[in-house]
């Protein structure tokens, strides 16, 4: 492994939806073990970036590179990316009525990590432990995927999946929105447990500095109108919280 190995490598990414251009030249590199954050206003293109990494069919990539450990993600189907180790914690997780949480977790872990990983005591123990860490009661396993879940339950469930699927790259799209302080702390604990001390990396999309206080990102990127306009360390989060985004807007003087 070379020293400048990139876990995620995004170069000059341009993307549109229905002929409306949304991403206008994104560059982003995450090294193994790093946690990065993307901050930006509503509509700046954060979810679009996440969806394109995961392969959402609605978006068209016009040009650019998206690689995971040197593999071209853009040529892969969504499920192949998942099996390669990309995980997306959704801003709006979808419900699947009738599909039981326990069954879904087992099937998904089998699809991503192989049948063996979803069998036996080891899996059950890991499941139990993770649920305990996230304050999820065991009755949850009998409910239907995201069906009638509260906002907080949905976010915790996304993190539970993250912990079980052990991805190489975890993308968390506003996982902290709608959570109270305890919820944010719990979720941050889950992210740290899954990423810190591993070769995996994470990209945290958020509006708020609070979750970043618990996760301590290596880098923070500011996204405005489909472009990263500034990159800095953890201190940037507090600055943004104080000053907002206007000062970073094109044409504004700093």
């Amino acid at each position, binding site marked *: 492994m070379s020293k400048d190995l990139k876990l995620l490598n995004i170069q000059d990414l341009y993307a549109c939806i229905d002929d409306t251009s949304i991403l206008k030249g994104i560059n982003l590199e995450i090294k193994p073990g790093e946690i990065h954050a993307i901050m930006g206003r509503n509509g700046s293109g954060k979810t679009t970036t996440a969806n394109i990494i995961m392969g959402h069919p609605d978006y068209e990539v016009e040009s650019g590179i998206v690689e995971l450990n040197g593999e071209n993600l853009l040529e892969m189907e969504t499920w192949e990316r*998942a099996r390669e180790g990309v995980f997306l914690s959704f801003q709006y997780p979808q419900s*699947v009525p009738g599909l*039981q949480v326990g069954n879904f977790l087992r099937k998904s872990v089998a*699809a991503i990590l192989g049948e063996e990983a979803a069998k036996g005591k080891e899996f059950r123990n890991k499941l139990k432990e993770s649920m305990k860490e996230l304050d999820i009661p065991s009755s949850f396993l009998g409910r239907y995927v995201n069906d009638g879940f509260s906002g907080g339950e949905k976010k915790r469930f996304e993190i539970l999946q993250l912990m079980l699927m052990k991805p190489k790259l975890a993308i968390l799209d506003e996982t902290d929105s709608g959570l109270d302080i305890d919820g944010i702390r719990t979720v941050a604990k889950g992210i740290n447990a899954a990423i810190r001390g591993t070769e995996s990396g994470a990209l945290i999309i958020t509006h708020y500095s609070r979750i970043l206080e618990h996760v301590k990102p290596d880098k923070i990127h500011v996204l405005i109108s489909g472009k990263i306009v500034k990159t800095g360390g953890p201190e940037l989060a507090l600055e943004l919280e104080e000053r907002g985004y206007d000062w970073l807007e094109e044409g504004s003087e700093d």
Partner: protein
Amino acid sequence: MVVNMADSDAREAVGDYKAGWHDPENSTIRFDAGLSEKVVRDISELKNEPEWMTEMRVKAFKHFDERPMPTWGNMSMLKQIDFESICYYLRSSKATENDWEDVPEDIRNTFDKLGIPDAEQKWLSGVTAQYESEAVYHSIREDLEKQGVIFLDMDSGLREYEELVKEWFGSVVPYSDNKFSALNTAVWSGGSFIYVPKGVHVELPVQAYFRINAKNMGQFERTLIIADEGSSIHYVEGCTAPTYSTDSLHSAVVELIALPGAHIRYSTVQNWSANVYNLVTKRGIAHEKAKIEWVDGNIGSKLTMKYPSVILKGEGSHAEVISVAYSGSGQHQDAGAKIHHLASNTTSKILSKSISKDGGRGSYRGLVKVSPKAENCKLNVVCDALILDEDSRSDTYPTMEVANPTARCEHEASVSKVSDNQLFYLMSRGHSEEEALALIVNGFFEPFTRELPMEYAVELNKLMALEMEGSIG
């Protein structure tokens, strides 16, 4: 009547039907195709039936002959049925078998593929496996016998318990009920006869397997279940059939009688091949505080018209009909439920779920009636449809006739589609598009599937996953 021996030509045209295979026809007695009073009398004579049964068959035949086709369901498909090309009686094995070892080998092979011996070891409490027109294998476990439970094929039931059969046969579904109940009454053969004595609980599901296994073979089985006071039984039937090039007709009649305090649950998963007309009359009568549940899954067939019904005759009785229907290319599932609240404090629940795909058509046809004298009835109807593409269709024809103002009625209906975002979410968890679709579809059917015995649930989930294969364009 002709007598023919094993006919290996019947191996042709199995097609791509996934659960389809068939053994060479091993029929010893086979009638020429076509129906007449003579054929009906011949069937009865061959079976050595009492005169009252012969006369009932003949009356039923006359009614069938005069009665026009139904004007609902799918009239253009119904018109295509050629009653003259159907063979109305076929017997593959001379006597009803009690011992597995005595069952002819090619028939046993068929059953092996269906997993009967295994299943029996595990959890069956008795088996009637109908091969072509008649039960060839029949066993009753000792504990059931000791409890006084009668579990026979219908032909043996008539021979051994004539008085009981005479009392109840046709009491729930008279031959004149509809054209197809008349046809069944005229030419019925096989089916199950079950009597559960007072207070006896048949805990393990009693299961019957049957399949169409001959060209132009109509199956006209007739089932009668009587649950005496305070007893309970769960009966399960399932069928798969090989594909043939000519159309087949399956027209069964099932009658249930739940005496005071009894509980009958009748579960079915039908997966007839896509050329079969599945026109079945199922009805039960619930006496005081009795409970009847139909759990009914329709996956195969060309046209199914089936509306399991319950007559709530006794005070405080309860009815439930949980059904699913899957309609693929060229299929029409016209399914539903009928409940008649004749007595006070009766309750009913209907849950109907249908999926249509590749131009398939699903329709819910329901009727819930509350008679003027029935006070404080509660009824709940939920119909959900899932449409998988633009070419497919779903309709609901719900009818409620409530003649007593104290009734409480609830009705909900929904039609939904699979969204791209739902598929994307599941695909992001490592599932291919087909697998994702199967998860959504099986989730949609889950309220039904969870009511089935484990083996059936697993089989149904597999079937639906198979149906979703190659469906992504």
